[in-house]
C-alpha cells in the first residue's frame, strides 16, 4: 500500500490577533505560531496507522520552502518513510487549482494507491485541493472522511454529514481522501524523535520535476484571484457587559431570568 499525504504549514490564528500588513496584501506573520495544518496532521496519522496494519510506505509532500522542512521532518518522525518538498516560489499566491497541479506532478512521480489530505487548511479553508486533485488525476474521491477500511482494490469510507449523521461509501482505488479532524488521535513526536530523522534526505522538486511550465501556476495563472483583504465589518456587535466577575455574573443571571431560563 503506497500512500501519499499532502500537508501544509499554516499559522495558528485561533487565539492570536490577526493583523493586516500595511500593504494590505497579507497578514503580519511575526507573532504567529506556525505548524502543520491540523487536518493534515490527522491525515498523516491515519496513513501511518494504515501502513502499520497493512504494510507499505507513506510519503508526505508539501509545497514549501526551507522553513517548511520542520513539518516534513515531524511527519518522518511520526513514521512516514519519505518526504518530498516542492519548491514554493513558483506557486506563490496560487489558488487551490495551482496547488493541485503541483501535487498532481508529485503523484505522477510515484505509484500511489491512496492520496490523503486534510479536508481544508486552517488559514484559507477552501476545502478544494483534495477533490480537485482527484479530478485532475481521474481518481475517485471522498471528503470529510471519518473512517477508512481498505478492502483489496477498494476502500470503504465513512463521511461526516450534518447533524451527527454519517454515510458510508465504497470507492475503487486509487482514491483521494480528504480527512476530517477527530478520525484518530495523532501520536506525540518528541524532539529526540525528530532528531533521529534529521539526516534523512528530502528531495526538493522544481517546477519541471512536477511536469509544469512557468506560468501554469502562481498568481498569474489563478482562476481565483485575491483582490483585497479586509477586517470584517463590526456589524451588530454584541452588547458588552463590563464589571467585576461578580457584577457580570449578576447581570447574566438577570438576563437569563428575563428570557425564560430559570436560574
Amino acid at each position: 500500500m503506497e500512500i501519499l499525504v499532502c500537508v501544509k504549514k499554516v499559522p495558528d490564528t485561533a487565539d492570536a490577533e490577526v493583523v493586516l500588513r500595511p500593504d494590505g496584501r497579507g497578514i503580519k506573520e511575526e507573532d504567529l505560531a506556525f505548524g502543520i495544518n491540523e487536518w493534515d496532521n490527522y491525515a498523516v496519522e491515519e496513513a501511518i496507522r494504515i501502513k502499520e496494519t497493512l504494510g507499505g510506505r507513506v510519503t508526505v509532500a508539501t509545497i514549501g520552502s526551507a522553513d517548511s522542512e520542520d513539518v516534513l521532518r515531524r511527519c518522518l518522525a511520526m513514521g512516514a518513510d519519505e518526504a518530498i518538498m516542492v519548491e514554493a516560489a513558483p506557486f506563490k499566491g496560487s489558488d487551490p487549482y495551482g496547488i493541485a497541479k503541483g501535487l498532481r506532478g508529485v503523484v505522477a512521480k510515484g505509484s500511489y494507491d491512496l492520496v490523503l489530505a486534510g479536508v481544508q487548511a486552517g488559514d484559507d479553508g477552501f476545502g478544494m485541493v483534495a477533490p480537485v486533485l482527484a479530478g485532475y488525476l481521474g481518481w475517485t474521491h471522498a471528503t470529510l472522511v471519518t473512517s477508512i477500511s481498505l478492502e483489496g482494490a477498494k476502500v470503504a469510507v465513512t463521511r461526516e454529514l450534518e447533524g451527527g449523521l454519517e454515510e458510508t461509501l465504497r470507492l475503487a482505488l486509487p482514491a483521494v481522501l480528504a480527512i476530517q479532524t477527530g478520525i484518530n488521535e495523532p501520536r506525540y513526536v518528541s524532539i529526540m524523535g525528530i532528531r533521529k530523522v534529521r539526516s534523512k534526505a528530502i528531495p526538493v522538486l522544481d517546477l519541471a520535476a512536477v511536469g509544469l511550465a512557468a506560468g501554469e501556476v502562481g498568481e498569474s495563472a489563478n482562476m481565483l484571484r485575491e483582490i483585497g483583504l479586509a477586517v470584517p465589518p463590526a456589524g451588530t456587535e454584541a452588547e458588552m457587559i463590563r464589571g467585576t466577575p461578580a457584577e457580570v455574573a449578576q447581570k447574566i443571571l438577570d438576563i437569563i431570568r428575563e428570557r425564560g431560563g430559570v436560574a
Partner: protein
Amino acid sequence: MQPYREVFWNIGYHYIFYSLAGLATAIFLYGLARRWRLWRSGWLEKRSGSFDWKLVLQRIFLNASIFKGDPLGGITHICIMWGFIVLFLGTALSTVDHWIISYLRGGLYLVYAFVLDMAGAALMAGIALAYLRRYVFKRERMVTVVRDHVVLILLFFIALTGFMVEGFRLRAQTLQWHEPSPVGQWIASVSGLSVPGARLAHRLTWWVHSLSSLFFIAYFPFSKFIHVFAAPVNVTLEGMGFNPFLTLEEREALKSDFSFRQLIMLDACTQCNRCTVVCPSSIARETLKPRAVIDEVGRFVRRKSGFGFLPGRAGDASLPKARAVEGDPVWFCTTCSHCYRECPVAISPMDVIREIRTARVEGGEDVPVNVQEMLESVYKFKNPWQGAKGKRMDWATGLDVPLLQEGVADSRCFYVGCTFAYDSRLQEVPRAAVAIFKAAGYGFGVLGKDEVCCSEFVRGVGEDGLFTELAGQNLDAFARYGVREIVTPCPHGFHTFSNEYRRMAPPMGGRTVRHVSQVLEELISSGAVHLASCGERTVTYHDPCFLGRRNGVYDAPRNVLKSIPGVRLVEMKRSRERSLCCGGGGGRMWIEAGEGEKIAEIRVREAAATGAGTIVTACPFCFTNLDDAVKTAGFEGTVVVKDLTELVAESLERRSAG
C-alpha cells in the same frame, strides 16, 4: 602459654572445608562480578560539585540518615551493621593470623575475643530488635517481603550457631586463661554437656555454622545483602556530586537505559519505604509508590540483563525502558524530590522515574493526552498554555515596563514566566513585582515577546529534546542582551536557570539567578522599600518544592513575611524540607489526578489547621493548585491564597495612599 585460639581445633576434614570455602568464595566473587558488570553497563554521569565527605561519613559510618526520624531503626541497623562488620573483620584477622603471621596472642587475643563476642551479641540483639520493631511495635511504614526474612533469619542463625560453637568449645577445652567471651562462657555453663559431649556438639555446630556461613557468602551478591556494597558506593558517588543531566548529543549517544549510578541505586535499596511515606502521590493514595518503582525497575533491569545465579541466562533484551514500570504510576510523580531527601542511602526514585518518562515520550506511547498537548503547545507556541506570542506582554498593559531590547541598567532580566504572563489571575503578580521594583528604584528589564518557556517541567516529563531547544532560545536571548542577573517569580524557572541551564550552551557564565523572594528580602532589609500594615492577618507559608526542597531557599520568603507589619507567620506541621508538595510539579498540572482527595486538598487542610486565614505561595503552580483546592475542599471564605509578591505590593500601596 599465651592466650590464643587454635583454628580448626577438634575439626577434621579441613580439605572439605577449604574446597567448600573456595567454592563459596568463587561464587561470591562471580556474583559480585556480575553485579559490577550490570552496574557498569550504565552510562557514566558527570561530576558537578565537590566532594562532600561529611555526607559520606555521617551516612555510611554513623547511619545518621537511618536514625533521622526513627531512632529505633537507627539502633537496630547500627547494631546489625557494625556487629556484622566486626565479626567479618574478626574472621579476616583470624585467617591472617592462621595463614600468614601469628599475632593474635595474649592480651591482644583476649581483647579480640571480647570484642567479637560483643559484636555477635550486638548483631543478634539488632536482629531481635528488628523483629520486635516489625511485629510488636508494628511500625506503619514497614513493608514485609519474604526475602527480608531469609536475610535476617540466616544472619541470626549464623550468629547463634557461632556462639554455640564458641560455647561448646569453651566447655570442651581446658584453657589456662579465662577467655573474656561472656556469651560463649554463658552457653558453656548452661550447656549441661560433658566434655566429650561438648566436643561432639562443638564439631556438629561448627560444620553447621561453617556451611551456613559459606552459603551466606555465596548467596550474598545475589540477594538483598548487595546493598552492603551498593549503598555505600551510592552515597559516595552522591557525596562526589554526580548528576544525571545530559546534553542532547550525549543523550542520543547513550547505549544503555540507566546510568551507572541509577543501577547502583536499584541495588542499594532495602525497601525501607521511607520514600513512599513522604511521597505526595502516595499520601493522596494514588498508584505511585517510589519504593515499588525502585523494586519494579530493579527486577526489570535484572530480567533484561539476564542477571541471575545461573550463568548465561539471557534476559529479554528487547524490552524497552518504557516498560520498566507498568501503567500510570510513572506519570504521578511531581518531582518534588522528597523521596530522594528522605532516603538514607541517597537513592532518587524521582530520577529513575524521569528516565522512564524519557523513553515513553520518545516512543510517543503511553503519554497522557494532556501532556502531549502541553508539549505540542510548548513546541508551537513556546509556552504550555497555547498563548499567542503577541499576547505574552499583555500583563504589562499600561505599566511602562522596560524592555531589555532597549538597554537596561544593571542588565538585570526580570523573567516573568509563562503562567504569570498568560493566566489572568496570576498576571497580578508580575504587576505587583514591577510596582515594587519601581518604588525601590530597582533596575530591571523584560525579554518581552522573546521570552520563551523555561521548560523545567518539559524536562520533568522527559522531553529533553524540547527542553534543550527552548532553553537554548532563552540562553541566546540572555547572551544577546548581555544579561548579568536573572530575577524570576517562578521557582521552576529559578530552578532550571540555576541548575540545568548552567550545563548548557551558550554558557550562563557568572550570571546570578535569584527568585523574587530573595530580591524582596534584600529590598526590604536595605530599606529600599517601606511597608505599612494592611491589617492584622495570620498567614502560613507554603514552601514551593522548586524553591525550598530542591534549591534550599526557605528563609528569604519567611523573612519577607515577617517584615510585613501586621502579619503573623505560623508554620504548618510539614514545612521547609518536609513541606508537602502542592501536586503541580513534574507536569502534573496537565495530568489528571487520581480519584479521591487531591494532594492540594490535603495540603489546604493542613494549612487551615494552623488557624491561618491566608496561605502564602511563591509559585504559580502552587497558587493555582491551592486556590482550586480551597474551593473544592470547601474552605472558601475561611482561607484565601495569596502570592508573596502581591502581599508585599499591597503593603506598599497602602503606604503611598496614606
